[in-house]
């Protein structure tokens, strides 16, 4: 194991030293479960090899499905997760996907993927989704189901089990223990994904504890509108406390912290309003190192001009917040809940997908980005032509 760590470190060092344009691929092994035997060492290797066809030199392996870990996690052990043992978890009844158990299979998929990445001489990192559900009830984790007292809550006072509130120190401690489990794999990079929230927004933070804190601070009832700047400020404060905790732990392992955010240009700060994340502040305060823009929203009257302006803006803002910050720009293989990927550009601009990707790759380099990110690479959602465009540019 020690040898593998060393090899991974060498790979990482060589990538950083060469100043190579970084091509980061997100991976969700669950998406391959109907194609490969993903609960085996061989399955994880096949996934990595498939992803490397894109020309990726950094891979980020997804850590969980909702809050069900994709590795044997001591923190998320009881009650037993396998459906239907915990009657509170509704089973997924698909023949394959509904039965995979990455947390309790014959191997440790994250370890297997990290080892194979080292063999393939690519940098290994972990893609951490901040959601606790993936829009399906079976993805709620044991700790969540065991601690309703920490569940989020709607403004109307209805408990919302989709996530536990970071306001509570117990919740932050739990999540930091999970993060320590991930850091034990010695990933070069941890990517905190703000795109996937599982329906959580600050509007789900009207818990008894948070509203009490509001009343203590402002001597009035909490705002009806969760986009109220003071409400956002309150939620952002304890959300940031959690990220600071991650940073302190990541520093010990020398792990780079990247945050995935969205950039809507002049429109209201989507990340702040919907995720309670002030990414510029996180960069300034040395809580994250780098920013991966998940997607931009172009003006379709001028798709290329507007995309370039947004790319330049993202790079300049990130560098202004933290001069050493790296910025990654998106090569998104599909439209993600209304967010346009390169297929949308191809459709609107009447170009091939490979032509679009070539142009986006060149644009990313031209605006001074440090690399690109590929939204989750599945078995075939990045075509061979697109992969060639990514590899060659």
């Amino acid at each position, binding site marked *: 194991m020690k040898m593998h760590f060393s090899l991974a470190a060498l790979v990482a060092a060589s990538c950083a030293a060469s100043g190579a344009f970084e091509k980061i691929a997100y991976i969700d092994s669950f998406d391959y479960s109907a194609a490969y035997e993903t609960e085996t060492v061989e399955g994880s290797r096949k996934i990595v090899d498939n992803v490397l066809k894109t020309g990726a030199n950094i891979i980020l392996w997804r850590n969980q499905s909702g809050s069900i870990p994709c590795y044997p996690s001591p923190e998320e052990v009881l009650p037993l997760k396998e459906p239907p043992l915990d009657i509170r978890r509704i089973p997924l009844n698909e*023949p394959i996907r*509904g039965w995979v158990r990455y947390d309790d299979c014959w191997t440790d998929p994250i370890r297997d993927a990290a080892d194979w990445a080292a063999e393939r001489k690519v940098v290994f990192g972990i893609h951490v989704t901040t959601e606790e559900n993936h829009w399906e009830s079976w993805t709620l984790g044991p700790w969540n189901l065991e601690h309703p007292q920490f569940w989020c809550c709607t403004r*109307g*006072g209805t408990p919302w089990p989709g996530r536990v509130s970071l306001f509570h120190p117990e919740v932050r401690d739990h999540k930091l223990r999970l993060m320590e489990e991930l850091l034990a794999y010695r990933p070069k990079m941890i990517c905190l994904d703000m795109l996937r929230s599982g329906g959580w927004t600050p509007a789900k933070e009207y818990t*008894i504890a948070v509203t009490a804190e509001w009343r203590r601070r402002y001597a009035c009832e909490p705002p009806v509108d969760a986009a109220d700047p003071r409400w956002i400020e309150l939620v952002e404060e304890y959300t940031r406390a959690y990220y600071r905790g991650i940073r302190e732990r990541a520093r010990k392992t020398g792990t780079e912290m990247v945050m995935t955010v969205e950039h809507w240009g002049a429109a209201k700060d989507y990340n702040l309003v919907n995720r309670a994340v002030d990414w510029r502040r996180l960069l300034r305060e040395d809580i994250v190192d780098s920013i991966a823009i998940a997607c931009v929203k172009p003006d379709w009257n001028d798709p290329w001009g507007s995309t370039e302006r947004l790319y330049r803006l993202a790079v300049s803002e990130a560098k202004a917040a933290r001069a050493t910050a790296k910025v990654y720009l998106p090569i998104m293989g599909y439209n993600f809940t209304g967010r346009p990927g390169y297929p949308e550009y191809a459709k609107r601009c009447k170009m091939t997908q490979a032509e679009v990707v070539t142009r986006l790759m060149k644009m990313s380099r031209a605006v001074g980005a440090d690399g690109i990110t590929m939204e989750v690479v599945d078995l075939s959602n990045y075509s061979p032509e697109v992969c060639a465009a990514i590899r060659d540019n």
Partner: protein
Amino acid sequence: MHIALAAILCMAASASCKASCGCDDGCRPRRLCEGTAGTYSPDGRRIAFTRAVQGKSRIGVMEIGGCEKSVEWIEKEGNAAHPAWSPDGQTLAYTYGNETNTAWAARNGQTGYHLRLWRKGETPREITSGRYRDYAPSFSPDGSRIYFATTRDLGDRPVGYATLSALWSMRPDGSDMRLEFCKGSLNSGSGQSALSRDGRILVWAQVDDFQSFWYIRCARADTPKLSGSATPPRMAAYSPRWTKDGRFLVCTGFLAGDPGWCVYSLNPRSGAVKRICEGRNPDISPDGTRMIYDDGAHLYERSLSACDFPSAAAGDATAGPSQAFPPEKVLFSVEKPKYPANVPLDGRFAFGSDKTFFVRARIRAREKQPARFAEIAMGRYSEHSVGFELLLDSGVPEFGVRSGDGTYAKCTFDRRVKEGEEITLTGIRTADSLYFSGPDGIPASRRLAGGTLAIDHPKHLTIGEPFAGTDDILSLEIGTGWPKNVKHPFSIAEVFE
């Protein structure tokens, strides 16, 4: 004065409790053993329970007060859980699974979670089969049927493979298997059923969709589709069990402010609840004097007394269909409308948060839908651009509204419409629930936690987006009151008549 009175009552109750259970210190629980989800045998002398052992779930049976060495383990391998005694105490039903392959390797196999029956001294007998999960069994009081939750045989329900469980029953020999109730929509679940001792009333735990949590519904056993909520609107609850006299339920519950999962008693007729203690998975002894429950790790037993149950006057009304609805009054009606169209509403459809209203459309399903979401009618309001909507989502009819806190809530039809099918769809919103009915006039329902959004400032009605033409929407009506083509749900009082 009220506080003083409460104190006196509490002291009296405590004295009564002490007298009834014989404890020196009231109803202090005693720890029985490591384990969860315990259930009393019908003679009250034994318990069956679940214990996690080295990552596997085991079922043990022991005498109350017995020692660890006396525990009899039902299965030696695999996972066994959810034990339920037959009424004669001779048989234990439970779910059993032993996946020894990867999901990929087992994809075409018949392994799964199946129901098994265990009798002392005999090899367990499997009574279900197939690549399904059958779980959470319970016997009818006369022992003639087993109710259980399952992922099996979804047929042409909206989502062939989905996060979904339904409530089924069968004879204990595995024959005469039938669907009792299926909510039908993605992320819905029904299970953990319990029949009242007279066999008339069925209660079960239900999840309406992803954004909600388990709560308890009750219905007459012969008409489970006409059910109502037995729990207060903002309460999460599961694992209902009847008391001996059939007046109350005990369950695991959570209300905002609770320190964690708690054992609650519940009067399903009134919705009144009372928190008994912290814990979960309660079961009441056959003589009604004791209760076992767990804290997620250990089983406890404690005495019960009258003070553990809500008084007749306590609590508020349930979210069940307890109110009388006025008859339908059509406010808007159009035959074969041209669409897409935007109709100014000019003050029509000011439904407030409590007025019962319905949207009824007769449609002819296309061979191929032009988009995933095909709107039939959408009411746009100042309060929200989607105040209500009737639509097809990938061919599955849905009726959706905003609930009181602005979140979207929907009720989904239990199947796709068929090509060329002409069908009348009726969505109904009441002050606390949503209903959705197809041709049989029996509405599916879900509760709306926290009431419904006041819809008082209508702007316009969108019809038929993104369709074009006149062939699909044959008629559209919007009105107040209970629509005459839909069977009225039982009130909670009617359920218990």
